[in-house]
């Protein structure tokens, strides 16, 4: 199986963008996703359980309007994907979507959007936002476009977790990803997240970010760090107020 995640990271890195900030990075993700997914536009919006919500980055001005409009109206694919914790795949906006989002769908259609695919940005109960993919033609995502879209969602989740305020920016190159760890145990990684959440008395999202930051700082794989956490050899302290 080709390493699509690696290809996608390369495509993102190849986007002309000033380096540094999270917004610039996510804008590169959006533009790379347009190319890779044969999309007309993409947008990343942040929604969290504690009420933070808003458009983070988009590939182009029209996509920004399409993202903003959802927040103005309080309806649209990104809310549904977030609430239902699963992708919302609308292959023809002229269909059932018109009754599902009675204001948003006609407005998006009038702006040339014909299909929209919304992917939740989440790891289990840790929810960060939604990646919206817009197309100016009706039709479903092909199998490999779908796989790539899920990869873009993963990459976005990693960026949101790793580049939040207070976390050191990760080094360039591949993330210490437990999923690529040959004998890594994914279940153990998620169990470790639940344990650290209790240890730090924080949210599950905080716990996921803390484990990743620790792995970067210690230059170890997520799988190794998770193993130590589950074995009780590594504990995290609660954040000081």
């Amino acid at each position, binding site marked *: 199986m080709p390493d699509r995640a690696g290809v996608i990271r390369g495509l993102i890195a190849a986007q002309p963008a000033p380096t540094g900030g999270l917004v610039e990075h996510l804008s590169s993700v959006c533009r790379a996703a347009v190319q890779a997914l044969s999309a007309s536009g993409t947008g990343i919006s942040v929604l969290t359980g504690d009420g933070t919500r808003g458009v983070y980055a988009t590939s182009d001005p029209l996509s920004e309007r399409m993202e903003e409009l959802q927040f103005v109206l309080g309806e649209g694919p990104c809310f549904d994907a977030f609430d239902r914790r699963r992708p919302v795949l609308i292959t023809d906006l002229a269909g059932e979507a018109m009754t599902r989002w009675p204001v948003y769908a006609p407005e998006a259609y009038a702006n040339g959007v014909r299909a929209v695919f919304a992917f939740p940005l989440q790891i289990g109960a840790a929810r960060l936002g939604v990646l919206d993919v817009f197309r100016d033609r009706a039709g479903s995502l092909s199998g490999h476009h779908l796989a790539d879209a899920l990869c873009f969602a993963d990459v976005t989740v990693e960026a949101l977790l790793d580049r939040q305020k207070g976390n050191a920016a990760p080094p360039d190159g591949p993330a210490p990803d437990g999923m690529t760890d040959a004998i890594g145990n994914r*279940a153990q990684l998620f169990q470790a*997240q639940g344990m650290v959440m209790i240890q730090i*008395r924080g949210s599950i999202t905080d716990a996921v970010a803390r484990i990743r930051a620790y792995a970067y700082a210690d230059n170890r794989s997520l799988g190794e760090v998770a193993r130590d956490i589950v074995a009780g050899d590594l504990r995290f302290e609660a954040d000081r107020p």
Partner: protein
Amino acid sequence: MTTVSAQRLASIFVEVADTLVEEFDLIDFLHMLTDRTADLVGAAAVGLMLADGRGSLEFMAGSDENVKLLELFQLQTREGPCLEAYRTGQPVVNVDLSAATARWPRFAPRATASGFESVHAFPLRLRAQVIGALNVFGDTKGGDFTGDDVPIVQSLADVAAIALLQERALRRGEALTDQLQGALNSRIVIEQAKGAVAYARGVSVDEAFTRIRGYARKHNRKLTEVAQAIVNDRTTPPELH
């Protein structure tokens, strides 16, 4: 394994049909199915894997969820009977694990070390698509499924696939992909909840799962909902006995 009892098989299908008429929790349902399959064929363990949108298999439910068994499923993302059944769409039956090291260099020795002697895998088929595999482990030597047993166990795998379709039918117009991604993320939430309960209560993750499942059953709640509540409402994990 002798030919399965028609009476017990019939009672399983009644239970399945009864579950599928109402709104149900997919992961609960898959657990029930793996439990019943293990009873029916006298297997040491039964597990079920689903393919994510990237074509990679992920563990969803097992008759037993101990750490050793989860590792065997983790290995099957790279090699093993589930991956073969998933890729070929054909059942893999009666494989003697002690003679399977050349076929599965990592999986076979680990499975043998865990006390298993035989292994079988049945594809989860939905129309032309294969969406996962049902895995049966025996602790007697391979060669123990008779010709009649194969279509019976395959029919249980087909039922699991129908369950996904059934959930989809409840929300018409949406792709199977949504359900698969939703189910895969629910599985992650369960692992996070296991970690949280294990740490908060000072028990093993295996014991934590038993308690979460027992709590859900006792209070007639969905496993996924209970797991979600544990992770989101982190300050007060429910009193799980």
